[in-house]
């Protein structure tokens, strides 16, 4: 397969993958208002667990890691998602329950840094700074794939996963559950005053979002066969925020658009440009800066994003309207100056 097609399929993979990651962060932040600055940590856990549950036992591999269960795809992927959800439960009970937005953001970003630090240094967990590698290709034996055909194949697999996850998210956000999440986002005091157990919903949102993060991370390690700390510096969470904010917070199509614009065009495409001699990595650095600037520009000029959150219109209308409307004069018992009332409402 030529280099060109290799690039194209890799870009397509990352488009689908970041679409999934964006949907996960969106349900936490865009729908429920939880400023999860540790998001990349959940992605990493998903990735690592997906890896160690499909790698064979670590003895003799030259790597050190926990588990090593040798399970097939997609079981390992599901486990990755569930592991991330488990972390979300822990975080929700310890931090979410007690802290308001700013302090929560502080604790989450600290968690992200500490998680990074520990995984990077404590080798027996996930092979430290070297990370995991030689992760078995999913379904490769089953379909008798070669290295060349694996890439388009797996890009397609991730497309299927993305489609399923999109459908699930679509159902959730359009259901009363999604509406309650948004109510909590807009004003959690009012939601509580209406009888909603706010923490329970925040927990649910965190768990769902984390599952998506974990699956997104799992797909990364399955695609590339390896995963190490350089892939998930805490600042990477910001890139996912950029995807959802540029694309359009609260809108599932916006997630796809954001993934396309930020992740595919800005981050991955330039990675294929030839390096500037004498300045290795410069393109990457400038790239990240551009993402940061783009986000600020978007926030300033178009905070709702490219594809803003849709207005969910009433699915039905009243067949007959006998009761007073704004223009109508018939009103309740007390005599009322209807012209004044109409002016007040108009």
């Amino acid at each position, binding site marked *: 397969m030529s280099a060109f097609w290799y690039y194209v399929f890799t870009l397509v993979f990352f488009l689908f993958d970041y679409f999934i990651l964006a949907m996960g962060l969106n349900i936490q932040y865009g729908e429920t208002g939880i400023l999860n*600055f540790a998001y990349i940590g959940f992605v990493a856990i998903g990735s690592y667990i997906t890896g160690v549950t499909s790698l064979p036992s670590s003895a003799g591999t030259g790597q050190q890691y926990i588990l090593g269960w040798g399970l097939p795809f997609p079981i390992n992927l599901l486990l990755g998602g569930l592991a991330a959800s488990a972390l979300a439960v822990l975080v929700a009970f310890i*931090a979410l329950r007690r802290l308001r937005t700013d*302090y929560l953001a502080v*604790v989450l970003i*600290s968690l992200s840094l500490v998680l990074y*630090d520990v995984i990077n*240094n404590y080798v027996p967990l996930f092979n430290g700074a070297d990370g995991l590698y030689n992760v078995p290709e999913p379904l490769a034996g089953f379909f008798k794939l070669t290295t060349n055909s694996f890439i388009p194949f797996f890009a397609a697999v991730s497309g299927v996963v993305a489609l399923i996850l999109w459908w699930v998210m679509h159902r959730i956000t359009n259901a009363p559950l999604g509406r309650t999440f948004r109510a909590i986002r807009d004003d959690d005091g009012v939601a509580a005053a209406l009888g909603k157990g706010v923490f329970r919903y925040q927990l649910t949102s965190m768990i769902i979002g984390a599952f998506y993060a974990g699956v997104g991370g799992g797909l990364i390690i399955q695609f590339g066969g390896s995963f190490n700390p350089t892939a998930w510096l805490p600042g990477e969470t910001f890139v996912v925020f950029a995807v959802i904010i540029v694309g359009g917070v609260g809108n599932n199509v916006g997630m796809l658009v954001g993934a396309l614009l930020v992740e595919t065009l800005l981050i991955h495409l330039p990675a294929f440009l030839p390096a500037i001699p004498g300045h290795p990595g410069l393109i990457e650095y400038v790239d*990240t*800066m551009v993402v*940061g600037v783009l986000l600020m520009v978007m926030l300033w000029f178009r905070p709702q994003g490219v594809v803003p959150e849709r207005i969910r219109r009433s699915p039905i209308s009243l067949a007959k309207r006998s009761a007073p409307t704004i223009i109508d004069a018939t009103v309740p018992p007390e005599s009322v100056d209807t012209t004044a009332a109409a002016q007040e409402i108009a």
Partner: protein
Amino acid sequence: MTLFWLSVGFGFVTASVLTISAVGLSLQFGITNYINFAYGDFMALGAYFTYVLNAEFFHLNVWVALVGGSLLMGILAVLLNQFLLSPFARRFNKTFYVMIVTFGLSLIILNVIYSIWGPDVRTYVMPLERVVHVGPFLLTRDQIIVMFVAIVMMLAIHLMLKTTRLGKSMRAMSDNTTLAMTSGIDTRRITTITWFLSGTMAGLAGSVLGITEGNLTPAAGELFLFVIFAAVIVGGVGSIYGAMAGAVLIGMATEVSAAFINPEYKLDVAFVILILTLLFRPSGLFARPGKG
């Protein structure tokens, strides 16, 4: 036992660096009411400004360069507030927007540093180390100077807050911004001055960190950020004295723990203390009402 006392000695040094950075963060948070997630990168940038003055272009003595580097960072902080942060803070009434902007700023500054100076480790040009025995502690002359700088800074801040009009205005604004505004305090001016102080202290802390660690890396400030957060929160958010107390506590705890556990994880001890504080005494040691 000697290892213990040695750690305590190092604890004072870390506490010194932490105090400078925690007070800088706390002053700014008290006035603006949002967390600056780029603070760690302000520290790093300040350290690199000092590096330029010390090892790249001007070859000044590191202690002199440090003053220059810190002031440069202070000025940059004022400019960033003027043209970026303040406009966002005024435009949106929820703090998440400006916090995401600071998060973005953090990434931008980090990559600017990478672009200009690259990822390699740098060091300051320093006169030869001399080790001094002070009681049971074994400290280098530079570490002692750093502690001295921290003490002077703490005293200066204390005097400023308690005796000057500026200090009183800052305390008023920190308690209740609207009331301060209607009492005739020029909140814009105070905010600008606070950012200058915060940036300068960040630059100072970053440079001093570079001196005590013996090297500079672009991400050093960022990785230290959660330790600063721990100090500020454990000490009690909104309280400057709390930040100082928290810094001493956390600084001491992390260094002393290195005598008992693998020193690679000593900073993570700060996180554990942060979580325990949040679980059992969330307002911290000296919380100010209205900020918790």
